[in-house]
């Protein structure tokens, strides 16, 4: 099992079956992706014309390829897949990625084709990721099988298991362009004809390159096996799942998307709780939570403090915190005195921290910095959210004090969020995130993330 996962995620040599010299064709984009990510292993292509594409040698048939190739990626149309799988098996290539769609997710004919494919896989003894997948990404190996134009994917410690081709493609492009974190492994499962989420979850659980695992699934192929693996991994690393098809209408959409049949969602809910899997309900959380886990620790609990220059936010975000299972507890008396010393006497300082008066008296950096240090030092607080209100008139502070405080308090997450001039918010995010402080454009987002991670923490430390 481990050896097949290594061939998939840490290959030394790969073959692209259906290599193409036509820009934009999957067999061409894939070779460019492999080159752009600096894959150090051997790369071969197969195309009846032979020659060379993107600098890689092309063979006319699978049979002509060199021996001992770890992995083949097949970009041919669906109807050629069964025969190609057999040919790869005969050549001794064990790990295959099948890109084509047009199987059971489409119609009855596709279903029959998928049955043929299953027979080919069983007969040739190969292991298959897909079909109907944009492929996978493995940055520790500088490798991707994605045929969606990606360019250089940033490396990080977050891994994804996803039952949508969208992930190794457009979702990665979103991460790369809108966020500042990298990925370790990303597996697009597709129709899961063979390799499933349980097998990959087990691999990622043992993977030293993976610090946290996020999943998007529309069904669970072997539920009992999945729960058994998850029960172990969830004690070691955050395991966070978005389950598509939790409503009746969503389940119908899932059937059309990846040919998935749903189980009773409430039973699934119970099983996930038993296995310590933290369930989420928003697609965007796959990114929002990942970027927090990429640079910040999991909070030790659900007790949050936040700083805001707006009375409305101290009220609304306290309400919202409660709805997310967070507590906004009273702070220690010495913390409160420290905050009061920064504030004009007419503002009574407490948690949440109304920072408006302090900023007026001491300036941005001094007021925010001291107040953050005070609440971060308080034993009653597990995490701190900083709401910034940035406008040209108010002046734009130097954000290094936030980076320094994050280093001073490495066990407590600090998240930043905004209300104000968008141009300054974007610049602040772009400055802070590469330096290890996640920033969220919408004011509720950091609280949602903390709510999820507090549940995650409880799962990680649940009694045996």
């Amino acid at each position, binding site marked *: 099992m481990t050896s097949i996962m290594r061939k998939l995620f840490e290959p030394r040599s790969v073959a692209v079956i259906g290599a193409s010299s036509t820009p934009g064709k999957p067999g061409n984009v894939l070779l460019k992706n492999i080159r752009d990510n600096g894959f150090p292993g051997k790369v071969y292509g197969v195309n009846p014309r032979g020659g060379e594409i993107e600098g890689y040698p092309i063979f006319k048939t699978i049979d002509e390829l060199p021996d001992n190739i770890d992995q083949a990626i097949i970009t041919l149309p669906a109807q050629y897949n069964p025969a190609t799988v057999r040919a790869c098996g005969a050549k001794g290539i064990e790990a295959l990625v099948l890109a084509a769609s047009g199987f059971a997710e489409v119609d009855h004919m596709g279903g029959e084709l998928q049955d043929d494919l299953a027979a080919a896989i069983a007969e040739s003894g190969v292991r298959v990721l897909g079909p109907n997948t944009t492929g996978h990404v493995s940055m520790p190996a500088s490798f991707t099988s994605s045929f969606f134009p990606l360019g250089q994917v940033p490396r990080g410690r977050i891994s994804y298991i996803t039952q949508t081709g969208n992930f190794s493609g457009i979702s990665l492009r979103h991460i790369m362009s809108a966020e500042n974190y990298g990925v370790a492994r990303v597996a697009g499962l597709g129709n899961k004809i063979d390799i499933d989420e349980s097998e990959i979850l087990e691999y990622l659980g043992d993977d030293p390159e993976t610090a946290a695992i996020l999943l998007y699934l529309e069904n669970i192929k072997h539920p009992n096996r999945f729960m058994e693996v998850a029960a172990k991994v969830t004690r070691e690393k955050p395991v966070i799942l978005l389950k598509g098809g939790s409503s009746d209408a969503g389940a119908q959409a899932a059937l059309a998307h990846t040919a998935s049949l749903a189980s*009773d969602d*409430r039973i699934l809910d119970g099983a996930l709780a*038993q296995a310590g899997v933290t369930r989420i309900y928003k697609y965007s959380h796959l990114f929002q939570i990942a970027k927090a886990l990429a640079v910040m620790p999991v909070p030790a609990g659900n007790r949050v403090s936040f700083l805001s220059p707006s009375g409305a936010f101290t009220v609304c975000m306290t309400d919202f915190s409660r709805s997310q299972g967070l507590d906004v507890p009273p702070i220690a008396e010495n913390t409160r005195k420290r905050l009061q010393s920064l504030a004009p006497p007419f503002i009574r300082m407490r948690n949440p921290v109304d920072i408006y008066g302090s900023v007026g008296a001491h300036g941005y950096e001094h007021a925010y910095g001291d107040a953050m240090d005070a609440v971060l030092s308080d034993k009653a607080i597990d995490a701190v959210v900083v709401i910034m209100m940035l406008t040209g008139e108010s002046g734009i502070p130097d954000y290094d004090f936030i980076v320094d405080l994050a280093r001073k308090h490495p066990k407590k997450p600090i998240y930043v969020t905004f209300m104000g001039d968008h141009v300054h918010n974007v610049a602040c995010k772009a400055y802070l995130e590469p330096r290890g402080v996640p920033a969220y454009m919408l004011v509720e987002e950091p609280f949602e993330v903390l709510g999820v991670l507090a549940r995650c923490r409880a799962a990680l430390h649940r*009694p045996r």
Partner: protein
Amino acid sequence: MAANVAKIIQAAKKNGQRTLSEYDSKRIIAAYGIPVSRERLVGTLAEAKDAAKRIKYPVVLKGCSADAAHKTEKGLVVVGLDGQKALSDAFATIKKRAGKSYDGNYLVQEMVKGQREIMLGMTRDAQFGPSVMFGLGGIFTEILQDVAFRVAPIRKRDAKQMLGEIRGHRILDAVRGMKAVETSILVDAIVALGKIGLDHPEISEIDINPLIIRGDKPVAVDALVVLGE
């Protein structure tokens, strides 16, 4: 215990039954330690009077047969019988409502009093296998759909967590002058239902509804065991 349960199931299967009578259903859950109402199965009015005397009035009288799963809809349940006269009247009423072809028995049952009703169930999910449900009971079960599930085998810790998961979980607390429910009884019952599911694959479904909270202790006053194909 398991042997006794197996005997009840075997007898029912031999009879061609898809469901067990309330009496047999309760014998099965009671064998696994789930508290059930005190009751006696009787065939005649004389036996019913004798049973009521032992159980002590007030009592409940129910028609009890394998095919009378919907006792309430057919009106085969009369509650709050406080003496022999009431019992005799109820016996005649139920016998009449059940019809001439009725060949079932009658169940004389203690009247369990309490304002709070909850439910427990076991169902067999195609993917996860035996799963146990806990939720608000009585007539509100279907309206509120306020339930939580766990998959067998269930540990006590999971069962405890489950009790806190329903929206109406405060029903188990000390509210409106009522005592806090002794939740360890529910935890044991949840674990037990999961075990029944694992021990007896012939059982496809169990419905215990309601469990009435008497003081601080839940007691199953109705139960239905459904057998698989």
